[in-house]
């Protein structure tokens, strides 16, 4: 198992910056997710860790040893690729055994290890088949077994679940997490799926445009996003964002306004999550009308037309429900309101909502 560190690592391809200078450390046995939209530099980071790409600048450290010049094959890592990258002409047994060939493992020992890791991911009955004869989920397991068979010190997962259907994805999520906890391998998962990151990882690294936006626990990122990007990227249904202009303690939003805890000048964006909006009939809060109603099972999503703009509110099944076109009022949970500087897109952390006018 290994402790991973990136020191000022950057990557430039022909004048295009794929990764800005980045610092990062991952503890021994930790499960970290790198989350971001496509093109944000997350896969570049993964391939730099694997040694497939050389960083343009900076140092990569495994257990405090600089490994910049260490070949991928000498890094003792396992990767699961998005495409699984199984060797099409080899059967499953040979696929899983492939890494052991180069470790000079004795044949009987290798066979035992192959069986063992096949059992770990429940594919022992497919060992004599070719990859093309397996379903996506089974191929995914083979890729995992191949990555694990050599007992790597670092496991890298590159969007491993994105080609699976929804049900399978859910069960693989928990399976991978259980496996990781049992084997205690330092694991880095690259994904664009927030649900994957939130459910599996101990810590999430949120990236955008080649830069790390925020690092923190899933709860941290959800409740205290440090920028507009993190706030809007994490959470489904997404956070409500309303743009306005502040002068003194007043923030003008559309046709309405709200009162802040202290004076601010300039453009601000108010962020509030759908579940932090309460709908009532009491004449208190923002005057609204119910637009679309989307039942989602345990909750109902209401699209509200309000004086400060369109809002989405999530109401639990147990709370009173509303009909389309009904006139209602909505209230915000004050401590859940976030304010971002519209220009810099950063959180203005000392601003709070005091009252709605």
């Amino acid at each position, binding site marked *: 198992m290994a402790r991973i560190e990136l020191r000022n690592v950057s990557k430039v391809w022909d004048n295009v910056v794929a990764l800005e200078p980045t610092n990062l450390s991952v503890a021994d046995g930790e499960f970290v997710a790198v989350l971001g939209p496509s093109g944000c530099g997350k896969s570049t980071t993964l391939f730099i860790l694997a040694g497939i790409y050389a960083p343009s600048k900076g140092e990569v450290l495994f257990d405090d040893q600089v490994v910049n010049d260490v070949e991928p094959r000498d890094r003792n890592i396992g*990767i699961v690729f*998005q495409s699984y990258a199984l060797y099409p002409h080899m059967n499953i047994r040979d696929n899983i055994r492939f890494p052991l060939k180069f470790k000079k493992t004795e044949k009987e020992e290798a066979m035992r290890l192959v069986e063992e890791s096949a059992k770990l991911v429940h594919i022992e009955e497919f060992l004599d088949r070719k990859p093309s004869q397996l379903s996506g989920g089974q191929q995914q397991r083979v890729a995992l077994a191949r990555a694990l068979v050599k007992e790597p010190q670092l496991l890298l997962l590159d969007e491993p679940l994105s080609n699976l259907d929804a049900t399978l994805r859910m069960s693989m999520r928990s399976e991978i997490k259980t496996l990781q906890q049992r084997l205690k391998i330092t694991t880095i998962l690259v994904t664009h799926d927030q649900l994957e990151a939130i459910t599996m990882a101990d810590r999430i690294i949120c990236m955008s445009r080649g830069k790390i936006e925020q690092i923190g626990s899933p709860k941290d990122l959800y409740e205290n996003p440090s920028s507009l990007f993190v706030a809007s990227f994490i959470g489904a249904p997404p956070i409500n964002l309303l743009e306005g202009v502040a002068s003194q303690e007043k923030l003008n939003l559309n046709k309405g306004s709200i009162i802040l805890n202290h004076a601010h000048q300039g453009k601000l964006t108010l962020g509030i999550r759908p579940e932090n909006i309460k709908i009532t009939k009491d004449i208190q809060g923002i005057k609204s009308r119910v637009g679309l109603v989307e039942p989602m099972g345990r909750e109902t999503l209401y699209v509200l037309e309000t004086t400060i703009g369109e809002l989405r509110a999530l109401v639990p099944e147990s709370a009173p429900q509303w009909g389309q076109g009904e006139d209602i009022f909505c209230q915000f949970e004050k401590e859940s309101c976030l304010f971002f500087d519209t220009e810099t897109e950063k959180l203005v952390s000392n601003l709070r909502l005091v009252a709605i006018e």
Partner: protein
Amino acid sequence: MSAPSQKHRQVTNFAIFLGPAILLLFLFFIAPVIVDIGISFTDLGRDLQFHKVTTANFERMVTRDSRLTKTLGITFLYVLGTLAFFNVTFGLILSLATTNVPDKLGAFFRSVWLLPRMSPSVVYALMWIWMIDPTERGLINQVLSFAGIPEFDMMNQAPLMLIILVNGFIGASMGMIIFTSAIRSIPEHLFFAARVDGAGFWSIIWYITLPSIRWPLSFITVYQTLSLMVSFEYIWLITNGGPFYDTTVFALYVYKRAFENGQYAYGAALALILVTLGILASLLMWRFMDMKRMLQDPRIEVH
């Protein structure tokens, strides 16, 4: 739609889509063979007159043509040598080398290897005639004299090697192009995975690249075998089959008998051997290289 008109439709579609191809196939591939068989049973000679129907040509082939077996042997060595050293092996080496260097450099080297293919045959042949000139004017001898090695007359001392070299340097480019595009179509992730799994440069070629281009490899082998068996233009231009008959491959022998000696009927009979050999070679490779499967689906193996 009623059944009869559907049937009619099928017939029309067949005629429209396959008709032209079948017509061409018949005109240029099947008809010549039939004509050839016809001529081989006559005594068509320089006067272009038929006098009688006869099996004399075949009797001569079997009993009196001492040149025949020797020519077949030369053809076998020539085809095997050119394939083994150049058209498959060297083509593969070129494609592996040019896909493992930076893209622009690789493209440059591939273009260089394509040059002989692009230049007119006569120019390429003239260049070789100058290169192998047995006096100190020849390029090879100039290089050799620099190294202090005595002059070398390739045409007379190693004629078979000469025709293999001449055809191989041109022939390798076809394999190179096909193999390069096949290698390019292997998903990058397979190479990444292999590198992470511990494979080095040679292991990657052995375990990943070669198995993935198995089909293009057998295609080139089959195709080039057939094309080498019937082509003789460079041999004709450079050695004209000589010295003596040392580089007279079978196709050239047929040409000489028919068109230089004017024994058209005998040439036609000899050409039948070539046709038979071609069909035999195709059948053998169909059997052993699983060409049937190769011709059915696109066969560059990615899952």
